[in-house]
């Protein structure tokens, strides 16, 4: 009886001592880090697995994962947390476009203060790409984690049946293909097969999948800004705007808001500009469709590798952390090759690595998923967002110019680009 009591008391004592240090219960001097992954199911699952492994390996540094509420955008939640000083130690859902707001509010710590940052970051991500993540003050407040490069999906059936034998690589080839593909197959006088389709509403983030990706491609890897100044009112910008204007003017893209489901999945359009997530959608909703993945079309006469927009999510450590070195150790843990492989396998998301196709570790995955290999090839030539204020409104300006010029043909492409640039300059000026 007494022995039982002692055992019970002992158990309570041990459990009681667990206290705040988390499930695996370390001693009171243990470090506890909070980690916020992205709120979608696969990433939560990935985060869960990684955190479990970490916690087993590091009893003294426990990580507690907390999912971000789904109802709000991560940017809003993080910004509010920065203001209220309730930020986690680590978050892996950092959209580079919000970096300006986060750093201006003093919410992040510079990661390059850690001596091994260079070897970790540069060893993983090829240098020209890595440089794009450096902030204006020369420091890195984020480390690139995963990317969704925007590429062109194409419906093999639709192209072949229209007599298009090669996947279009330039604007000229694309428009020529468009002439053959966009047609009326039901005899009611209205086109029902389209070369492509884009959301015609001036929604700011939709432009990432037309104007912005194509601009990065057409300009050979340049983004909208150069050292904080507007730099997209260039011939490349005009070419991109003009290309889309032609697509609509010639009737290759529908000038209406398409209702009734995704036209690419339904086999109603031949091309679709999207990232690797589309592959999962294809497998689920159109498993029998023969499709391919190719780099985005570029202006005629363009030479060199094809760049594109990579929708990144990066990892950052917040300034409220009381254990920066431990937090950085956890970040290092997240970006090891093994765990990048898990990112591929569990979430089908592309780690920002330069050695995806050369490292034997990933060989088997890419053999099983040849379409993903296309995206892997594209990774080094992706570019992201500039670290400038009010990106949302700047893209809103681009979206409105795109609507006027490309969709409705109301103004020539030169004017559209000039308008968008003027508005972007006014916004930057206002923010100084």
């Amino acid at each position, binding site marked *: 009886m007494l022995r039982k009591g002692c055992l019970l008391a002992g158990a309570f004592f041990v459990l009681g001592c667990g206290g705040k240090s988390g499930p695996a219960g370390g001693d009171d001097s243990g470090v506890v880090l909070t980690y916020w992954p992205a709120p979608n199911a696969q990433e939560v699952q990935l985060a869960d697995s990684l955190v479990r492994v970490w916690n087993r390996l590091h009893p003294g540094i426990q990580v507690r994962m907390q999912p971000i509420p789904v109802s709000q955008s991560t940017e809003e939640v993080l*910004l*509010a947390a*920065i*203001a209220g000083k309730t930020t986690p130690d680590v978050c892996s859902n950092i959209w580079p476009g919000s970096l300006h*707001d986060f750093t*201006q*509010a003093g919410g992040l710590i510079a990661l390059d203060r850690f001596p091994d940052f260079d070897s970790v970051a540069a060893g993983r991500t090829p240098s020209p790409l890595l440089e794009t993540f450096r902030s204006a003050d020369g420091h890195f407040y984020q480390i690139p984690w995963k990317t969704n490069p925007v590429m062109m999906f194409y419906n093999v059936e639709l192209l072949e049946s229209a007599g298009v034998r090669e996947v279009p690589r330039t604007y000229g080839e694309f428009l020529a293909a468009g002439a053959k593909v966009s047609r009326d197959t039901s005899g009611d006088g209205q086109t029902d097969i389209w070369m492509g389709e884009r959301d015609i*509403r*001036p929604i700011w983030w939709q432009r990432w999948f037309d104007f912005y990706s194509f601009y990065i491609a057409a300009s050979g890897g340049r983004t909208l800004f150069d050292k904080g100044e507007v730099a997209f009112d260039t011939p490349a910008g005009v070419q991109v705007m003009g290309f889309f204007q032609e697509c609509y003017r010639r009737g290759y893209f529908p000038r*209406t808001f398409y209702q009734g489901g995704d036209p690419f999945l339904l086999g109603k359009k031949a091309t679709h500009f999207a990232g690797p997530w589309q592959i999962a959608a294809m497998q689920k909703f159109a498993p029998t469709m023969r499709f391919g993945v190719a780099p985005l079309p570029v202006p005629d006469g363009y030479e060199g590798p094809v760049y594109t927009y990579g929708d990144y999510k990066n990892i950052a450590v917040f300034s409220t952390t009381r254990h920066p070195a431990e937090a950085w150790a956890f970040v290092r843990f997240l970006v090891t090759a093994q765990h990048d492989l898990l990112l591929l396998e569990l979430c089908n998301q592309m780690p920002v690595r330069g050695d995806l196709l050369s490292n034997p570790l990933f060989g088997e995955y890419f053999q099983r998923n040849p379409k993903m290999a296309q995206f892997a090839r594209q990774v080094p030539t992706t570019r992201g967002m500039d670290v400038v204020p*009010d990106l*949302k*409104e700047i893209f*809103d300006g681009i979206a*409105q110019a795109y*609507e*006027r010029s490309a969709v*409705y043909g*109301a103004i020539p492409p030169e004017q559209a680009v000039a*308008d968008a640039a003027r*508005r972007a300059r*006014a916004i930057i*000026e*206002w*923010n100084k």
Partner: protein
Amino acid sequence: MRKLRSSEKTAYGLILPYVLFFLAFAAYPLVFSLVLMFHRWNIVTPMEWIGLKNFSRLAGDPLFFKSLGNTLVFLGFHIPLQVTVALAFALLLNSRIRGRGFFRAVYFFPVVVSGVAVTILWQQLYAFDNGVLNSILTSFGMPRVPWLVDSSVAMASIALMATWKNVGIYIVLFLAGLQNISRELYEAAELDGASPWQVFFSITLPMLNPTIIVIVVLSTIGGFSLFIEPYVLTGGGPMQSTLSGMLYIYNQAFYFNHMGYAATLGFVYAMIILAVVLLQRKLIESEPVQ
């Protein structure tokens, strides 16, 4: 300070709640808005003083001027339509007819229904592909009208909808105004042998001047406050042709989190409304009333 009479104490007691309310919801917001206009603020991070930058931005903001232009287009359709339709029905109702109460009730009904319900209803009327109006037109062999999808038509369509919703109030107002015109004036005119048109233009219309002013002023204020219709129907498009002032303020505040700039916009719009209303009263009142 002299001692308060007991009736004064009671009076102060009665008005105290309102005074507090006024301070909290009228005085404070006014003062704060004047402060906010000189700052940049996204609510989360601290306010930043930027002097007159909001104003210089506004002066060069094509969307601000677009919204003003759109409002003018709206009012240009809405006010004349409102006045003529309301007057027409009021004249009909004012004559010797049966069932006046019934008709008045039907005409007034759209006024009390929620703007949201009316907007959803008209969304179906105005739909391009299979909307009710276009279905009627195509059944007569006429081409479909791009009510909300053509930038030169969209705002006029919204003006038509707004007229339909609100004209009931003005029918009632005109009716009351008409019934206030003394019979003697009409009898005198009849004795003079005036034609109905002459009677209308020299007696009826001038006597209705005050009512017309009310309609024009209220419609103008309503036009500047347009929000839920473009918000639901068009999102401000196509090509920003239905972007109203209120919608632009809402977007700046809640979409882009520019509280200071939104406050500046609000202030400028308010000043414009006041100026326009004052001008309208002067212009319409200046017509001499016999």
